[in-house]
């Protein structure tokens, strides 16, 4: 793992969502649909992680999970700003005024927080996936996607380290933590497969996007290394069918969005 830390990224060299909106670059329809997937994954996960702030097992972890959630909100804002540029919508139009079936996030990110082990198992998968994804996407032929990914990959590298360090501690800590970690991996793994499913959209974008299946070998190697060190195994559980990229979600997303959107929808047209 690289020694670069997310904390070293200064506002001066980072691409902000406001910069994307101000640049006036318009995404074409397919690129926007692709950006929407990435933005929705980051947004839904940030919404989940934000719940932990003030409830974490240790103050240092309130700070760490808060940091990760903040990074993800930043990525979401950038991807959604760019996605919205295709038809004149803002990041908030997309976040607050779309219904459940219009979201394109994967099922994994909408899974409940559960106990700390379950949150960490979800973080392990997402951070290793996003690290490979953004690592490739920073070379995208689309300069905006490349710029967002180039910033995000450095932050996600820290998320990867955070989750891996916790998998080691929970896996090798006490009998209870080990039992919880094993169960958490079992509850998480049905939703891993969906992340790597190819479809027409990803394929049609060519060198502007990243073909999800191409990320799987590096993801598997990274995960295997962490789990081996933690004396854990990839759980042998069946995959769920997914469908998030087509707007078919699990039972959880509706509640998450109801809470996230309630205030904004109470005040149509208001600025905040």
């Amino acid at each position, binding site marked *: 793992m690289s020694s670069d830390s997310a904390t070293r990224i200064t506002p001066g060299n980072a691409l902000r969502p406001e910069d994307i909106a101000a640049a006036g670059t318009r995404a074409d329809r397919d690129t926007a649909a692709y950006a929407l997937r990435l933005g929705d994954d980051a947004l839904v996960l940030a919404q989940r992680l934000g719940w932990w*702030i003030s409830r974490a097992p240790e103050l240092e972890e309130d700070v760490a999970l808060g940091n990760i959630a903040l990074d993800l909100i930043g990525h979401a804002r950038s991807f959604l700003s760019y996605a919205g540029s295709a038809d004149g919508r803002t990041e908030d139009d997309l976040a607050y005024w779309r219904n459940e079936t219009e979201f394109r996030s994967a099922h994994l990110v909408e899974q409940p927080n559960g106990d700390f082990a379950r949150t960490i198992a979800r973080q392990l998968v997402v951070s290793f996936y996003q690290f490979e994804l953004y690592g490739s996407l920073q070379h995208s032929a689309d300069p905006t996607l490349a710029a967002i990914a180039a910033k995000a990959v450095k932050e996600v590298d820290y998320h990867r380290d955070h989750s891996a360090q*916790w998998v080691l501690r929970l896996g090798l800590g006490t009998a209870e*933590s080990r039992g919880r970690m094993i169960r958490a991996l079992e509850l998480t793994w049905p939703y891993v497969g969906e992340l790597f499913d190819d479809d027409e959209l990803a394929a049609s974008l060519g060198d502007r996007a990243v073909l999800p299946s191409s990320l799987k070998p590096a993801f598997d190697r990274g995960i295997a290394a962490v789990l081996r060190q933690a004396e854990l195994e990839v759980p042998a559980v069946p995959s769920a069918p997914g469908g998030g990229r087509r707007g078919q979600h699990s039972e959880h997303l509706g509640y998450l969005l109801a809470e996230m959107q309630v205030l904004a929808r109470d005040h149509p047209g208001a600025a905040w």
Partner: protein
Amino acid sequence: MSGETMSGQEHFDALIAADARVEPRDWMPEGYRKTLVRQISQHAHSEIIGMQPEANWITRAPSLKRKAILMAKVQDEAGHGLYLYSAAETLGTPRDQMTADLIAGKARYSSIFNYPTLTWADMGAIGWLVDGAAICNQVPLCRASYGPYGRAMVRICKEESFHQRQGFEILLELANGTAAQRDMAQDAINRWYAPSLMMFGPPDEDSPNSRQSMAWNIKRFSNDELRSRFVGMIVEQVKVLGLTLPDTDIRYNEETERWEHGPLDWKEFSEVLAGRGPCNSQRLARRREAHEDGAWVREAAAAYAARQAGSVGAGAVSNETGAA
């Protein structure tokens, strides 16, 4: 006279007389140490409990930008709690002990956090009024005689003043928004005004500990002096919002050179202080629950640290978290 030939008390008295810093290695009177541990740990607990009323709106923040700002703010409060616990630890009280006292209901924290955050505008009112009052209280603490406390306060005050501006900006946006938003902002100011004035503590004539703290250069101004200064600040700022403070008695007294305000309900203050406020039980329960639910995680981290150190069962560090 050199430090070596002076007694501890003489050395301490000389530091205070010179308005210099007392450091952890210096001898200090037991009362001074106790007063500081009480004050610093109460401040730390206030930061930690104070995360809850604002965390209440993280999942419902009405725009992504506001959500990010709010998350960052609540996270800053966790950071403030951490510096302050560290400052208190330099006086010989471990963080675990302070946490245990908090969740056992034995330690105090600022009563203001026992009020509920009922609307989004409360995020603005807390930033503007509660953080504003905290700043008035805390800026003088940057010069507190105890070095680690004063230094922690320098950093905290910088972040607090940023929070205050963010809170004001939330209210300004609401005040310039729809009629419903404007009402929301006024309602929040109405609810937070008096509790924020009471954050400065009881009137001077009823504040028994203040005199000694002032003599020790921990406290620099009296409760009423600071409260008056705060009223003078917000009475001007509320005009920019185009909203009002729920107090028709505010006036500047030329003779005393102080801002005066209407009567405050000190009976309510005592009730909340005694644990009978709207959210006392809820706030404490939530902290206890987070601590108890997280016990197995902290135990795992300690066991892992011990295992890494090659001596299982010995030298486990309870604060080990594994976070980078």
